């Protein structure tokens, strides 16, 4: 069984990749995917600590995180579709207007 630190290392790396994606990409869809990646890395950390302490609370929180991620993805994609209808593009640096 690998040590908890190794799982946490994977979690950290994934979180870093997610942050890098959010900061460097301009495609709104890819940014949303990076956010999903970050949520998942948080989930991995939750489950590692749940396993480390032998308690289930981490798993329950992970389920909640997944539910919130589903809601977030639906809303985010709706915003992407609405934005595409307004500007004809999903590049985030073109979404400069507050009111359409």
């Amino acid at each position: 069984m690998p040590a908890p630190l190794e799982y946490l290392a994977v979690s950290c790396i994934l979180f870093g990749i997610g942050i890098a994606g959010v900061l460097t990409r301009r495609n709104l869809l890819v940014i949303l995917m990076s956010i999903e990646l970050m949520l998942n890395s948080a989930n991995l950390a939750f489950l590692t600590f749940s396993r480390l302490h032998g308690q289930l609370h981490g798993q329950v929180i992970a389920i909640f995180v997944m539910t919130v991620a589903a809601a977030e993805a639906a809303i985010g994609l709706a915003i992407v579709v609405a934005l595409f209808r307004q500007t004809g593009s999903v590049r985030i640096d073109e979404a400069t207007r507050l009111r359409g």
Partner: protein
Amino acid sequence: MLTTAIFYVLSFVCILAALMTVTLSNPVSCALSLILCLACLAGLYAQLAAGYVAVLQILIYAGAIMVLFLFVVMLLNLSDEEAAEGRYDVIRGLKGLICFAFLVDLYVLVEVSLGGRIYGCPAPGLGSLEAIGELLFTRYMVSFEVISLLLTAAVVGVVLITRKGPASALAAGRGGSS
């Protein structure tokens, strides 16, 4: 021994797929590599005695959320929009580097505070469905209800955001709210 090997394979593929998600230019390839990453993560979850969460991960993420992503990508017909605009400039590379520095910092912190702790003996029934259900409906009852409220709000919000006008409200909302 086998568990360790599986862990390394899964985490390697997972990180590779995550990198592909962030670096590939075609949104469809991004989404597909994210699916691979999430599937590998499900394997890691199962290793952590969280079989239920692992199956939910496949069911919700790979089966529903990512399909929705792919659907939207194909609906908007975005192919290589980002390829034309010079994806690699210095400032963005710098941003990525700063992220990694921050993360290394975080990991060092975790390592210092956690030291060489290993897993204790897992509680019997850890990860079993009954135990999770019991916890979910006793201690986390309020959170559970709030989450369901959140999902309802999300459905309504999606319908409101994506509708074109009052007349075609229903037709526009149907695809997004799934």
